[in-house]
């Protein structure tokens, strides 16, 4: 004899069709120019930045770089909805998010240019730095949220992760403890359909990634990650619930990685051009522009002005990046411990001599 003991459901939220036309009635706030034109401006900036960063890499002026092409809406809307007192725990693809949160654009370039100062970002307050080991950031986010909960503060933590990362134990342990302790944290999955060469379908046979929330007993939902309006609705609600002590949410944002995985990757080796082409029909920047055009909040002249403006912003960041001198040799040693221990100080001295002497020891 069997009885039903549990039922769970996952909803998908979207407001705009691929071409930017509303699929039905929109939330009131989405009718006005704000915040959507603001989002749009940042998304265009993000794309300009991205193009430039790739160009720098191609010309040997930047290291391996992870493009955010296709994730502009997710990054921008999320960053704009977070309050300064909230804490961002990013992964390695959140460039514009970090800029909106207080990083300098040239710092982001420094990071990808192989310089630790690009992860320092004094403007980011308590936000965590870029995180390379996949999914580990999710546990840090739960840890940060624990600190907030222990101190009884009304702040939210938000962390991002890719679709591939949801296969890793760290992610699952993190959402589980977030549920067990009802932590003020939002887990935002950028499901861009690929983890380097491995498609989403090979990561798991779960029909949605959002349903991983059900295993942890927390709220889970899907949202169209190319739809700024839907993102705003879903993310603002989740952040607010976190701040209000109403526990964690897992959000799966459906997007598409329009670029190679990084500049070190060549996606033509493993994915169909047709899939990529189809994804360009749904991409977030054009979609929002179309919608804003339809509403009359945007036009060609504003577009041109914005392109000029963002180009200048990016260009000046690039100049600042290129003009940044390398860190002194001491910086290899001085940030490891609060005080440099004697043995390490000895090694620092050796390194100084190595650099000063142009490698010629006595």
């Amino acid at each position: 004899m069997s009885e039903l003991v549990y039922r769970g459901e996952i909803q998908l939220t979207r407001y705009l069709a691929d071409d930017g036309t509303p699929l039905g009635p929109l939330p009131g706030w989405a009718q006005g120019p704000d915040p959507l034109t603001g989002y749009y401006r940042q998304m265009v900036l993000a794309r300009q930045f991205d193009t430039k960063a790739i160009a720098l890499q191609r010309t040997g002026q930047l290291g391996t770089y992870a493009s955010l092409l296709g994730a502009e809406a997710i990054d921008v809307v999320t960053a704009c909805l977070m309050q300064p007192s909230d804490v961002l725990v990013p992964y390695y693809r959140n460039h514009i998010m970090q800029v909106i949160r207080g990083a300098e654009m040239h710092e982001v370039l420094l990071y990808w240019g192989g310089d630790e100062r690009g992860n320092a970002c004094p403007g980011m307050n308590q936000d965590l730095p870029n995180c390379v080991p996949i999914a580990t950031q999710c546990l840090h986010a739960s840890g940060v949220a624990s600190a907030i909960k222990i101190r009884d503060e009304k702040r939210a933590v938000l962390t991002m992760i890719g679709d591939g990362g949801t296969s890793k134990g760290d992610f699952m342990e993190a959402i589980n403890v977030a549920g067990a302790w009802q932590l003020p944290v939002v887990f935002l999955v950028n499901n861009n359909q690929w983890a380097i060469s491995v498609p989403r379908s090979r990561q798991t046979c779960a029909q949605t990634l959002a349903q991983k929330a059900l295993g942890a007993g927390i709220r889970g939902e899907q949202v169209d990650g190319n739809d700024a309006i839907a993102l705003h609705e879903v993310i603002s609600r989740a952040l607010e619930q976190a701040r209000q002590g109403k526990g964690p949410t897992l959000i799966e944002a459906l997007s598409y990685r329009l670029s190679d995985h990084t500049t070190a990757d060549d996606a033509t080796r493993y994915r169909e051009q047709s899939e990529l082409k189809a994804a360009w029909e749904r991409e977030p920047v054009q979609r929002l522009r179309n919608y804003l055009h339809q509403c009359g909040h945007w036009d060609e002249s504003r577009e041109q002005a914005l392109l000029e403006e963002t180009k200048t912003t990016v260009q000046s960041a690039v100049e600042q990046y290129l003009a940044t001198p390398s860190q002194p040799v001491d910086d290899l040693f001085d940030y490891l411990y609060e005080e440099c221990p004697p043995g390490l100080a000895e090694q620092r001295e050796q390194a100084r001599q190595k650099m000063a002497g142009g490698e010629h020891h006595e």
Partner: protein
Amino acid sequence: MSNAITMIEAVNLALARAMTDDPDVILLGEDIATNGGVFRATVGLLEQFGERRVIDTPLAETMIGGLAVGMSTQGLRPVAEIQFMGFIFPALDHLIAHAARMRNRTRGRLHCPLVLRAPFGGGIRAPEHHSESTETLMAHIPGLRVVIPSSPARAYGLLLAAIRCNDPVVFLEPKRIYRASKTLVEDNGQALPLDTCFTLREGGDITLICWGAVVQETLEAATRLADKGIGCEVIDVATLNPIDHDTLLASVSRTGRCVIIHEAPRHGGMGAEIAATLAEKALLSLQAPIRRVTGYDAVMPYYRNEQIYLPSVEDIMSAVEQTMEFV
């Protein structure tokens, strides 16, 4: 007030003191709250400090490591317990890839003032995975401090230091001597330094370098060797990263002979680092090869045979005698 207490009681005392002094100190781990820890290290602390600060976690060591990293970036001072060192491996990623690097990575903007406590070592007839000594894995990592007390007083003082330290500290407790003896420990809130060895016995003929539970056997061997006319200097390294090489070097330069004793496997154990550094810096003072008395390069056996594996007083005496006879 000072009291004769065991090492596990000293751990408990230091935790209580640190929590009293600093509201940012919080404890987390498996079975540490209601149960007071499987070794009772945290007993009474839930009652004293409440469940916000003494937290039973779900069963997941990676999670414990990752939570501690996240918490500590926000200025908390988490003291996390890994129930046995044999279960620490899933937490290593967060220690190595994050805790040890956070300050360096952010050029000082954030840091991880966390402590990861774990009981370690053999000799208590425990099941598999409950008796290993893998301190090398952490001591090799730049940015992690690795501290091992070997008496109630050092457990108290070093644990206080570890908790107050702004660097991440792995604090390994030799559980075989948790209740080996009671000594007077004053609850005066005074930390011991994390950057010095402790010379436990002075002697002019040979230097015995050790840490953890085998400090007991080493001291016993030194006593017995004194009867045979051999003066042993016994040094407890206590902090394995960064190591206070100066104290070791000074002693060995004086005695010219040295035996290193630890429970971990020899191959790549921290005894090798100490021997290599001494041999490099004190070569001309050495009157005999530096011997190591260690665990074998074999898996720690189940408990019936664990005594074969563990360095014994006789093993140490024999190594010392051979070293003394070397000409």
